[in-house]
């Protein structure tokens, strides 16, 4: 058993923020926790990590109660960047973790290279950009090769290259046997990471497997965008064009091959295709349509 949360309830003043959450994770997987601001995602993660008390229920991680500090030798919690100390260097943070968790200092360089932060390892955190802080948080979280990695908004402030890098690292960790619970608003990235999504709505958890959802987003870079748009529109494949001249199909169930065939027949050269599933966003809209999108 990796995680077992039973009937977790948490009340702030008179309001129940968590209304009986049950989570059971038996084998390594990536789970996304999605919900609008104030839905209780961070509260749930903080309760699981024993940072907040809860009114009812129980949390066990790797067979131990969540209050056991020795758990943090085997798990990691990537939190908000406010936990960092501005007057210390990135190296100081990582060295401290190595010391308390009895990890070899050699691992610092290894992790820094993997995350891509060797250039500013010895710089003070106060001079870091948001993205650099996120890199450090990630490095801190993976330093101990955790069996369970819980991440609260790890993609905030990351540029596209860094976001891709983080995604690659997470997928590698998953392949190495790490269970990852990730709370994020970046639904696009969630779709690329996992099919298992836990939606938080009004303090309750709705577990979804998006494998059955086949909607996809495509972005095509083509030789003659305006001509291509006209051809696709006339072929009954409505498409939008962004300011860069890229053609976008949002949440479409049209097979990619159909689009390629139409353009090929009209001698339009396709330079690049970016395609990925769009299940999380579609489902999110369905669930939270009465709320403003995040």
């Amino acid at each position: 058993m990796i995680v077992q949360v039973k009937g977790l309830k948490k009340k702030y003043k008179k309001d129940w923020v968590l209304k009986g959450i049950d989570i059971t994770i038996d084998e390594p997987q990536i789970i996304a926790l999605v919900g609008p601001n104030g839905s209780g995602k961070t509260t749930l993660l903080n309760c699981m990590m024993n940072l907040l008390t809860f009114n009812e229920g129980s949390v066990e991680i790797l067979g131990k109660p969540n209050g056991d500090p020795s758990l943090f030798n085997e798990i990691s919690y990537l939190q908000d960047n406010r936990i960092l100390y501005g007057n210390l260097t990135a190296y100081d943070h990582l060295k401290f973790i190595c010391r308390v968790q009895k990890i070899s200092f050699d691992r610092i360089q290894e992790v820094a290279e993997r995350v891509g932060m060797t250039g500013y390892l010895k710089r003070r955190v106060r001079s870091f950009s948001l993205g650099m802080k996120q890199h450090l948080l990630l490095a801190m979280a993976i330093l101990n090769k955790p069996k369970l990695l819980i991440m609260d908004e790890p993609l905030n402030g990351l540029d596209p290259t860094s976001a891709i890098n983080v995604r690659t690292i997470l997928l590698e960790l998953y392949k190495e046997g790490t269970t990852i619970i990730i709370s994020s608003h970046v639904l696009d990235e969630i779709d690329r990471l996992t099919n298992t999504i836990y939606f938080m709505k009004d303090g309750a958890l709705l577990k979804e497997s998006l494998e059955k959802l086949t909607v996809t987003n495509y972005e095509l870079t083509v030789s003659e965008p305006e001509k291509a748009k006209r051809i696709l529109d006339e072929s009954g494949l409505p498409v939008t064009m962004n300011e860069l001249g890229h053609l976008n199909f949002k949440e479409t169930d049209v097979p990619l091959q159909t689009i390629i065939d139409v353009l090929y027949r009209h001698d339009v050269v396709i330079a690049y295709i970016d395609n990925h599933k769009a299940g999380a966003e579609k489902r999110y809209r369905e669930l939270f349509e009465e709320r403003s999108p995040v």
Partner: protein
Amino acid sequence: MMQFAFELKKIIFSKKLLYIYLLLIAGVALLFVRNVTFQSYIEKEETERIGILVQNSQNLNRMYSSTLEQDPEDKDTQKLKVINSSMLEKLYELRGMSMDKWKNRATIENAFLEQVLHFKEEGGAYDLPVGEINKMLAKNEKHLAENIKPRHATYSMALPNFLKLVVDLFMNFGAMIILVILIGEILASEFETYSINFLYTQPIKKGTIITSKFFSSVLVYFLTLFVLLGAAALVGLFGFKGKYKYPVMIERNGEVDFITIVQYMVQGLTVVSVTVIMVIALLLVYSLLFKHTLSTVFALLATMLAGYGLFAFIKWPSFFYWLNPFQYLLPEERLLVRNAGVDWYQGIPVILLLTVILLLIARKKIETSRIS
């Protein structure tokens, strides 16, 4: 130990510490410059003091002459006039004597003071209280006996006296002000910024957070003291050598007594350091209660003020001095006046005991503490 080093680093590598140390060094240097500037004022002040006494005696002489003109047979007035004339002679001698001839000055001043006592015994009225005269006599005698030149209490350039001046400022207000600025936020701010979550999600017992923050704060306090005294000693080297056996007058059970300037500084720094250690422990408890820096600092200052006021303005039986943990908040008076059998060190055991209790409370409290 790992946690301790981390906590120490957090304080030592802060810009605040650097600025405070620079301010301390600049402050010490400015204090010395002030003393250099005011050297000429010392002589002027002494001349003025003697001038007032001369004026006093001259007025008395005129008054006695006038009385004797009316009644030449008035024996009492005759006697007082003779003594006052002799006092006036001593004052003239003092007024014309160089400040460098301190032994002669002390001898003459003592002769003058003895005459003032005699004058008062004979019924004369002189503007010097007997207690004050006795203290001046004892002080001069001590300096003559020890062969140590007296220095000005405020503007001395002699190294030991300058160090005492710095120590006085530090122990009376400086230590607590520096403490509050430097480590007032050591734990409360971690709750405000949520950085405590970093520590809470490491495989360490929460109690060690308290212990390590406590010992790192204590070490930083001693480091600050070292920097201050080091700066004072370095700056003081530009002044006079002075003597570390310099006598500091105290009142012990109603009698005048002396300790050396080194004893005074050691005792003062000991009591203030013990108090600082207790205040650090109290700060940690308040940080856990309020989890907010300003509230914590405010509660701490209010407690210190109330604690001091409780014992400074209310007359308790002397036994309570043993129990008052705030008796050394402004320790100068406590060091200089040792009456009713209460010695300078008697409050230390209770303060240390209270420190241990506060630390145990903080360790217990943090075990159940969560983010707000």
